[in-house]
C-alpha cells in the first residue's frame, strides 16, 4: 500500500503506469490531485472538452470510461496480476465495488451498486464519467459516488504476463464543475480523522477480497525511474493528450 501526497495530473498517471508495468506485488496506491485536474478516458476526444476554462489542467488516462473532474476526492489505483481478479470484467468491478461499499460503511457512508441503469453504449452517452451511472456503478440517492475504470495489458519486466490497472475516484466533496455527482460529504463531516479512517478501511477491504493483508510500502527505484520516463514521454506531453 502506497499513501502518496496529492500530485499533479501527469505525475499521478505516470506513477500508476509504472506500477502497472513493474510492481512485483499487488499494489494499492492512494493519492489526490494538486492542482485539481480533469482526466479524460483513454478513447475520448479532446475536441469534446474545448469549452472548459483555458487554465484547466488536463491529462489523458490509460484507462477507459469518461472524463472526471478530480477535486477533493480519494483517488486510488490498484496494480496487480490479472489472475487475482475475475477474468470477466464486469465481475471484477463487482468484487472491488463490494469491498468499497464495506469500506464506506465503516465510516458511516451508505451506497449501493446500481442496477437497471443505462447500459454501456456504442459510444459514451455523456462525456463525464459521473453523469450517467451504468449497472454496477456505486451510487447513492444523490447520484454516482465512485468512478471506476481499468487498463488490461500484458506487462512486466522479462516474462510478460496479464496485468490490470484499476482506477477508482471516490468523491469526497462535490466539485462545482460536476454538480451532478454524489459525495461522501453528503453523509458525514469530512474531518481529518474520517479521511484517515477511510484510507485504512479501503486498504483493509480491498486486501481482504484479494486474499491479502495490506502493509505500507514504498516505490522501488525502478518504478520511480519508469514514472519519470512515462511522465516525460507520455502522460505529460501535449501529443498524448491530443492523440484523439
Amino acid at each position, binding site marked *: 500500500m502506497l499513501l502518496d501526497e496529492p500530485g499533479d495530473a501527469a505525475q499521478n498517471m505516470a506513477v500508476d503506469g509504472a506500477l502497472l508495468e513493474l510492481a512485483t506485488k499487488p499494489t494499492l496506491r492512494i493519492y489526490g490531485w494538486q492542482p485539481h485536474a480533469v482526466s479524460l*478516458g*483513454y*478513447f475520448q476526444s479532446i475536441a469534446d472538452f474545448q469549452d472548459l476554462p483555458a487554465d484547466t489542467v488536463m491529462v489523458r488516462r*490509460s*484507462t*477507459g*470510461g*469518461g472524463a472526471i473532474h478530480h477535486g477533493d476526492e480519494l483517488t486510488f489505483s490498484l496494480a496487480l496480476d490479472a489472475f487475482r481478479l475475475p*477474468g*470477466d*470484467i*464486469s465481475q471484477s*468491478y463487482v468484487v472491488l465495488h463490494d469491498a468499497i461499499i464495506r469500506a464506506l460503511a465503516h465510516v458511516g457512508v451508505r451506497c449501493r451498486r446500481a442496477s437497471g441503469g443505462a*447500459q*454501456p*453504449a*456504442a*459510444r*459514451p452517452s455523456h462525456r463525464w*464519467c459521473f453523469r450517467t451511472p451504468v449497472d*454496477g456503478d456505486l451510487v447513492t440517492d444523490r447520484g454516482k459516488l465512485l468512478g*471506476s*475504470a*481499468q*487498463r*488490461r*495489458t*500484458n506487462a512486466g519486466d522479462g516474462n*510478460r504476463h*496479464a496485468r490490470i490497472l484499476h482506477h477508482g475516484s471516490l468523491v469526497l466533496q462535490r466539485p462545482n464543475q460536476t454538480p451532478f455527482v454524489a459525495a461522501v460529504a453528503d453523509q458525514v463531516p469530512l474531518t481529518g480523522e474520517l479521511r484517515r479512517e477511510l484510507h485504512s478501511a479501503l486498504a483493509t477491504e480491498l486486501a481482504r477480497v484479494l486474499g491479502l493483508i495490506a502493509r505500507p510500502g514504498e516505490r522501488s527505484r525502478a518504478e520511480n525511474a519508469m514514472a519519470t520516463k512515462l511522465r516525460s514521454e507520455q502522460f505529460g506531453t501535449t501529443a498524448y493528450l491530443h492523440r484523439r
Partner: protein
Amino acid sequence: MRPDDLKFQKSHEWCRVEGETATIGISDYAVSHLNDLVFLDLPAVGATVTIGESFGEIESVKAVSSLYSPVTGEVIESNEELGDNLEWLSEEPFGKAWMVKVKISAAGPDLMDVAAYDSHCKAEG
C-alpha cells in the same frame, strides 16, 4: 466449436496462416470476458506489427484491453467495418470479426492448436 485450422495465443488472439498472410482476431473466450464492447482501435494498412507487441486496443465496460500480435509483419488489410459492428465479435469471432491481415515476416513461437487452447481456457475458468 473453434475452427481447427487456427492457432492461439495465451492472451486469446487467434491467427490463421494462409501462405504468407496471417489473419488475426480474438477468440470467443476473450469476447465473453470483455462483456459489452464499446470501442475498437486497429492499425492502418501499411503499419508494422510485432510479435508480442500491442497492435490495437478494445474498450469494454470502462476497461481498455491491449491486443497482441502473434506475428511480425506489415498490415495489408484492416477490418474497417468491425468498429461500427462490434456485435460481430460475439456473432462470428472467427469469421467476419477478423481484425487485421498481416504479410508475415516472422511468425511467433509457442502458438497453441485448438485442443491446447481449449485446455488453456478451461484452466483460466
